[in-house]
């Protein structure tokens, strides 16, 4: 199955992709993605952490790693028994028009395509459309209704895509059953994330999808902005919050830290 999505996901989307990759790999599913930034990389990483092979379908020649920063990831994919595949000859450099074709190939290779966070017009939606053409199953992970990154995925859900709340939903679509999951009794709305213990009350006012800035939190709590900014920085130092697009989001603990 393929996991695709935005190249600039929210921490939420990234965590979902990583967790899905991990749990599906543990369940014996081969996770396919596109080696791109964001959701793709998170899905590959999760699958590797889950000990499964993962396949990167590339829009360049297999000898041209794009983005270049993913050289280490590509090596890890190969070391993990996975594969880098491409329909393009060796030496093909990144070209805008090659990527839709790559997305189509990804859909061809998969039985199920799961979209995690895709803004309107995202390349992930091309993959989903290709999957529909090919009569493959398309599924989507819901997001916040406030986030532009949910527009694409919610559109898919409205049009009949399968709802993904956890890895079991995907396994059901693959007709594989959920018995190999970590904890088959886990409540369905929990993908397995744990929030850091709320040492600072501010934390409970932060979201893991939408960035809030110090001013917005300070207004809500009726506290001086200087104080809130300082407390957020302290939380940032501890790794409990992250700066994200001009604000702060709650940092979700990564799958690999749990594994």
């Amino acid at each position, binding site marked *: 199955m393929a996991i695709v999505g935005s*190249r*600039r996901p929210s921490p939420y989307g990234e965590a979902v992709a990583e967790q899905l990759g991990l749990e599906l790999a543990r369940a014996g599913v081969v996770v396919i993605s596109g080696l791109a*930034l*964001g959701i793709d990389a998170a899905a590959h990483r999760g699958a590797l952490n889950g000990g499964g092979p993962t396949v990167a379908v590339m829009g360049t020649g297999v000898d041209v790693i794009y*983005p270049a920063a993913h050289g280490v990831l590509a090596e890890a994919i190969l070391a993990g028994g996975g594969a880098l595949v491409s329909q393009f000859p060796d030496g093909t450099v990144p070209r805008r028009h090659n990527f839709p074709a790559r997305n189509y190939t990804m859909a061809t290779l998969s039985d199920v395509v799961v979209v995690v966070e895709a*803004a*309107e*017009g995202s390349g992930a939606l091309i993959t989903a459309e290709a999957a529909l053409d090919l009569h493959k199953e398309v599924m989507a992970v819901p997001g916040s209704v*406030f*986030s*532009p*990154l949910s*527009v694409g995925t919610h559109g898919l859900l409205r049009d009949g895509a399968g709802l993904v709340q956890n890895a079991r939903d995907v396994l059901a679509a693959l007709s594989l059953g959920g018995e190999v999951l970590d904890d088959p009794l886990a409540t369905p709305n929990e993908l397995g994330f744990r929030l850091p213990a709320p040492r600072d009350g501010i934390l409970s006012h932060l979201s893991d999808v*939408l*960035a809030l*800035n*110090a*001013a*917005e939190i*300070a*207004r809500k709590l009726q506290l001086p*902005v*200087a*104080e809130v*900014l*300082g*407390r*957020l*920085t*302290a939380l940032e*130092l501890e790794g409990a919050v*992250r*700066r*994200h*697009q*001009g*604000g702060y989001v709650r940092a979700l603990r990564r799958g690999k830290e749990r594994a």
Partner: protein
Amino acid sequence: MDLHIVVRVLGTVDSCVLAGLEARRVHVECDIGRGSEPAFHLVGLAATTVKEARERVRSAIKNSGLEYPRTRFTVNLAPAELRKEGAALDLAIAIAIVLALTRRSAPPNSAFLGELALDGTVRHADGVIVAARSLRALGYERVFVPAEDAAEAALVEGVEVIPCATLVAAVNHLLDVEAIVPSQRSVAAFETRAETTEHDLAEVHGQDEAKRALEVAAAGGHHLLLSGPPGAGKTMLARCLPGILPPLELAEALEVTQVRSLLGELPRGRPLDWTRPFRSPHHGVSMAGLIGGGSGLAAPGEISRAHHGVLFLDELAEFQTPVLQALRQPLETGRVSITRAGGSVVYPARFTLIAATNPCPCGWAGDSLRACRCTPAAIDMYQRRLSGPLLDRIDLQVAVRRVPVEHLASEPQGERSALVRERVVAARARQLGRQGCLNAQLKAARLRQVAGLGPAARRTLERWAAQRGLTARGFHRAWRVARTAADLDASDDIEEHHVLEALGFRLQDVAA
């Protein structure tokens, strides 16, 4: 032999030309010969504007009803190797001719400045206050200046200012026909005008984080970067900064006035300019326009026009890279020295920089309502244009977000600028009392002396520095901002929360 000496007549008068904020002395000598044909020779490395003085001076003298030489005569501008530009030597040349003909000498330690109209009126000259101040330093006691510039020149203490409305008036004064009353320092000029702050912080909706950053910037003299989508109010915020800075000190006002006088931009009827400058050059500005330059001797650029005020650079990423690079020296030293064919000049340029930028080429990255359409690579490239040495010198960085439209209709609730200014003034007083300069200008060694960190504060700063890979410069910058946060708190010690706040304004530090 004797006869020869008697008929040779010489008139000598002093004037000056300006090189930056310094005056260079010019001796104007007129030698009236015994020749047959009347001819006016002007020698002494005169530029075109000065060569044209011949025509202006001749008409002015004749139209004033004064005697004009009927023989061949020479006007020499000494020293010969100094290039002379501008029309301000007109008055001195005319006076030299008149004195030569009347065989009188100018009063000692006097200098003459002013352009002549063809009817003999003495016209405005740029930089009269600069000239008066420099001439006093050179030992002159009296300056003859255009009447309209007299109030400006009179701001300089210790020099007598003779306002000249016309050439005749000046001549009558010199020939003891009718004395001109020297100009007095006008008391009104020294009354600080009640600052009419056009932009008040209270009118800005939300943006408390950016407002706090402005307060810290104003208090410690720190530079500030505002990053946010179009329409987030970055320009409005920047325009609020002058309103929360303390009023100009007299010395500062005099410096601002000198730069403006040099540029001929001093408002008429207001010899002393008390307005804190706010300059916002367009991103297409050239190197000469921003830093200073031009042919001959360099003219002051936007950064010197912003001296003691605010330089606002909107769309920072759109400025040419070499132009931005050139900002580094003035940002560090508060001065800029520019060398051109005509020589080297130094201009003051101690300004607070407010830079604004979009987070990405389309501007919408991070906006909650509109999706950004830029590729990660494009964003990366855009932000790389900004990074490096310039960004390294901006202490405060803050993300500005759009205020939801539904909030805009309501009455904004924020502090008035006047209230914020009170805290800024108090914090500045603490700094000046402690170390004689603002925190942003503290050298690292001095910083360690006067701004000790408590154990917890030090641990936090060090932990961040290690986690984010701070350079020594970045470390000290965060330290200075923490000192300013403590000063705003009227606290002698830098507490941990001051350090945390300072670090909160370091958008540039990305977790490794």
